[in-house]
């Protein structure tokens, strides 16, 4: 014997290629007729089995007050906590002594979407959003300025489950 292949001793039902083949063919054919699980993405973004979680952390959004100004008071907590160092903030002050951001930019490429900026924000101004489609034709379009951040309309992330806020 040229090649000795060690074969384990098993009962006939388990080693019968014939039975296994027929069983397999029946199985694949039954799958042919079953409902398909594919979600047709661009047309269909959620199904009854699957939706984007309200805790999804995606594209940022800056909330605004009644006058349409950004709620941000340029306290500097978000660039401080940001582990990816992707937030650029230059604070300014008006005549009444109210602080506001002169420049507020988030580099979506550097961002790791941890959501710390939203957690740390005392004014509930910056948020991560339930949104994931942010493709662009050039790289510099990925640095979102204040105007673009306030213009976003998608829902903001809840970060925690509202029915179970402590995560129990």
């Amino acid at each position: 014997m040229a090649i000795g292949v060690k074969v384990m001793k098993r009962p006939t039902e388990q080693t019968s290629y014939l039975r296994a083949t027929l069983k397999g063919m029946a199985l694949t054919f039954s799958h042919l007729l079953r409902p398909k699980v594919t979600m047709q993405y661009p047309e269909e973004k959620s199904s009854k089995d699957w939706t984007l979680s309200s805790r999804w952390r995606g594209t940022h959004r800056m909330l605004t007050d009644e006058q349409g100004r950004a709620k941000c008071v340029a306290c500097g907590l978000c660039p401080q906590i940001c582990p990816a160092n992707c937030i650029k903030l230059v604070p300014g002050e008006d005549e009444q002594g109210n602080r506001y951001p002169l420049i507020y930019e988030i580099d979506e490429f550097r961002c790791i979407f941890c959501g710390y900026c939203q957690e740390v924000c005392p004014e509930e101004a910056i948020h991560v959003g339930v949104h994931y489609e942010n493709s662009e034709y050039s790289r510099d379009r990925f640095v979102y300025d204040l105007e673009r951040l306030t213009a976003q309309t998608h829902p903001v992330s809840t970060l925690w489950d509202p029915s179970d806020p402590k995560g129990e």
Partner: protein
Amino acid sequence: MTFFLVSSFIKMFVVFNLIMVGVAMLTLLERRVCAWMQDRLGPNRVGPQGILQPAADGLKNILKEETSPAMADKTLFTLAPLVSFVPALVTFGVIPFASPLPTRWGVVPMVVADLPVGFLYILAISSLGVYGIVLAGWASNNKYALLGGLRASAQMISYEIAMGMSTVAVLLLAGNVTLSQVIAQQQHGLWFVLPLTLGFVIFFVSALAETNRLPFDLPEAEAELIAGYHTEYSSMKFSMFYIAEYSNMVTASALMATLFFGGWDIPFTHWDDTGDPTVLKTLLTLAAFSLKTFAFLFTYIWVRWTLPRFRYDQLMALGWKVLLPLALSYITILATAIWFIRVQIGWLYGPGMALILLGVNVVLLVALVWWLDRGRIVSGIAEEPA
């Protein structure tokens, strides 16, 4: 003469294009059926239900960069896809695909060339296909490609024998190697699948191996040999191998339909093969032939997405220790039975003879299944415990 030449050229053109379109649709069908079997949808974006996907694939393959390995044998490397591509198409030339078509200038037989040696021609040409694969493996100068090529040659030669042997039974019954006569014989009696069930089973398994489809796709074996013989091929050359594989499938399916399932015969009626040829008959018989071929093509795909690949020793054991002795003893038994019925009883081929042979086949088939159903193939060449 002019009529013959013109009609032959038209038939060649039409058949070539139909096969090419069929192959393109088959690649799409393969992907979609595979997806359905895995509870997915498959490619459905290009055109309605993905019908234009093959066109997109073709365009992509033409536009892709063609790479050529530095150490490859350039001549053979270019030649190999052609050598595997041409026999796959040429084989189809002798298969009749519909009843004769009446035209204003005469009746056109619906076969590109009704060779008197039709079946021998198929055996001869289809074994040429292996050269393409072996040459591809050799010319690539790549160890995996070479291994794939070697496996292909070993496998195709082993299974060719069983395949040839299993068809001897058909020729015994038909008494002719012209495929149109084989079909005519089946129209008078019963389809050969009934009196030659076991022969069909052997032919089917060998045909799977001959076309390098799973569970016999050892020449490709992407898990072991990357992609076997076409590892080094890219763009249109790769595509040619792909087209060759699918054309081989079409030819093998058409051959199974012709040899065992009555070719273009419409079952349960003699309307299609008696009386004057009409256009309607041609169209309906063409539909019947396509349907039978399609059924086998679907089975090919179905088997591929069900069964895992054989181990190499299992493949060889199945070919040489099971199929070859089986085919040989089958011919012996069948030849004896046919001789007995023809000479001792004096019947010609007809329903009576077919039914007696069917009885013989059922007995043999039951015995075979009983014998196979004990894990011998999976055990491969390991020693049976004494």
